[in-house]
């Protein structure tokens, strides 16, 4: 073998090695990429395509391309707009009250005034709602909020209400009742996260604050809250996304009736009750767009935290 041939063989080998090195990370990533493609990308693209066509899935006629007509129909529909408004109320109220209750209970459980056993006991009690599945929670609260249920009985006995209230079937009350149930079922997640965050704040900061003459409120405002900020932002954004997706709780308590229609129940009805899969796909894409926006904020906040 001449020198030239040796050099050519070596350079070919180097070229192969370089290609291999370039390709290798993708090979390692391929199982995840394939899974992502099959489980996420393909369904999203399929639903997006459905939203641009008519006569999809349960229609023997060939699908007809209609462009953005389904979106126009959905976005201008009175019931869809009502569902958006209800969803926003449901999600924002849930996130705000989850935050307030979660933080309050976490502060209580983090207090040095309580003994370890008392804390352990209340941790179990406070976390209980999180243990139940959404369907169990719905059944439980349907019974409690029944006109002849425990809640009305207690409130009547103590004179808090003049007559039986129809918590889930009164048009003015139902959306608040459903939001309340969602708050009850979701606050433990905040509680656990905040408790972990509180336990991670160094005592030195509080001691320095006290030396500077800070009172309890000032310590909370200038030390606790800023220290919890990354957790608060992450929790709020994730909770907002999860609450927008909440279906079982609303469906099993009111079926979306009595002014409680939210985007998830609206989509379900369009798909599985009206068999209007194109419209349902358009609604699903709108929900996806909202959630993507929130997710972008979430990722940005994570990046800022990391930096």
């Amino acid at each position, binding site marked *: 073998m001449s020198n030239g041939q040796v050099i050519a063989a070596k350079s070919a080998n180097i070229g192969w090695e370089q290609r291999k090195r370039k390709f290798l990370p993708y090979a390692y990533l391929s199982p995840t990429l394939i899974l992502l493609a099959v489980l996420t990308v393909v369904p999203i693209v399929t639903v997006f395509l459905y939203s641009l066509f008519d006569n999809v*899935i*349960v*229609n*023997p006629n060939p699908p007809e391309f209609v462009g953005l007509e389904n979106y126009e129909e959905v976005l201008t529909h009175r019931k869809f707009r009502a569902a958006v408004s209800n969803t926003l109320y449901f999600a924002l109220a849930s996130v705000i009250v989850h935050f307030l209750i979660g933080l309050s209970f976490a502060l209580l459980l983090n207090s040095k005034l309580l003994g370890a056993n008392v804390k352990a006991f209340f941790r179990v009690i406070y976390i209980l709602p999180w243990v139940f599945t959404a369907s169990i929670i719905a059944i439980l609260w*349907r019974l409690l909020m*029944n*006109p*002849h249920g425990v809640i009305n009985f207690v409130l009547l006995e103590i004179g808090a209400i003049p007559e*039986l209230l*129809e918590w*889930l*079937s*009164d*048009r003015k009350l*139902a959306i608040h009742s459903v939001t309340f149930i969602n708050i009850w079922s979701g606050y433990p997640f905040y509680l656990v996260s905040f408790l972990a965050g509180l336990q991670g704040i160094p005592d030195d900061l509080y001691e320095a604050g006290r030396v500077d003459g800070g009172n309890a409120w000032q310590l909370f405002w200038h030390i606790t809250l800023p220290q919890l900020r990354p957790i608060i932002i992450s929790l709020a954004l994730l909770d907002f996304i999860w609450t927008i997706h909440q279906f079982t709780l609303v*469906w*099993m*308590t*009111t*079926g*979306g*009736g*009595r002014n409680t229609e939210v985007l998830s129940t609206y989509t379900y*009805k369009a798909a*599985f*009750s*009206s*068999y209007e899969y194109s419209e349902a796909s358009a609604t699903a894409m709108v929900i996806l767009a909202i959630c993507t926006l929130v997710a972008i904020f979430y990722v940005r906040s994570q990046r800022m935290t990391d930096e």
Partner: protein
Amino acid sequence: MKKTVLGLMVVLVLLSGVSMAQDVVLEFQQWWEPELPEGSFRAILDDFEAANPGIRVETISGPYLTTKDQIIASAATGTMADVVGLDGAWVNVLWKQGALHSLTQAMADAMYDDSELAAQIQLAGETYMIPIANFIYPVFVNLDMLGAAGIDPPSTRAEFAAAAEALTDPDNNVYGWAQPLSLEQPNGIQNDTMSWLWATGGSMLDDMGQPNLVDNMQLADTMAYIKSLHDAGVVAPGAFAMKENEKVEEFVNERVAMIINTLAHFTLIRERNPDLNFDITALPAAEGYDGPRGLPYASWGIGISAHTEHKAEAWKLIDYLTSVEGNTKLTSIANAFPGNVNATPDFIQTDQLFMTAFEIFQEGYLANEFTGLPAAEELMRQFDEPFQLYLEGDMELDEFLEIAQEEWEDIFE
């Protein structure tokens, strides 16, 4: 010796293969098997197989909602089971997909005489579903409560309203009637609302089978009558979010004196409250109406997949299940009324309440106009929403019916 044994085994395998190849295997998807006593449905199918050598039936069984989802999904992909259990509410959507084989065609091919069939669900003039077990919805009345008030079971709307008023005692949480109108399960529109209309011979559709909610005097009268019951305070509170099972619970716990309910709940009610003294009666009709009363009902229907290669064998199975022998067996274990007019389930001869129900069944006619309509559940829901506003007094009768008509016309398009 070894070779002989080996040879025998090969011959046996080949023979069994031949016999397997000759057998036609029918897939039969339905939700009935889990609702029947264990093994009883399989026993009926075994009898069918014994009478039809060469045909085997494999059941695909699951709960009602799962079965519905699976059948509709498999229809979309052309993989529906050969024979399917059907609810009247799904027939239209399956028919639109071309997923169901015409039973009119199947009957003609088999030269079948359909005179014994109690009902056939037709679309565009052809049969696509045959109800083989029917569960009617009479009025259940609490005899003790009626007796204490000195009232007989009501037969007319006026009698019903008077009885409901006499039996209502809000201080003790007792009401005359319960009407479940939950939007999650909007079948209260079919069973507890439109049933009043059908009992008086009325219809919610015109002669062409299109929505006829506006300028329909009988319908308007019926809705006004139901509102009068709500206005009188005789309807159990929470109606707008109440589901069917909660209605039954209210009756079982003697907080409601009268409900419109399926016969399928007989056993359940007796188990839940063995001391409950109750009877059934036909749905009250409007004053002056003496024609036959329409009886709301739910059915276990049956149909054949348009894509099956075994249409003749599938029809044989339906033929057996709708025959006097097969239908008697099935309806006896299901506590249902037969799809064959000559079948007589056992329970009719042994249980007084079922005897009464059978008389009501024979005097009236099966009426469920939602069967076969497009997106039947959504029709109920679209009717339910303005109906609730009307009952609350936030909408006038005409406006409510106009909105419902508009929504229905959209769906029918």
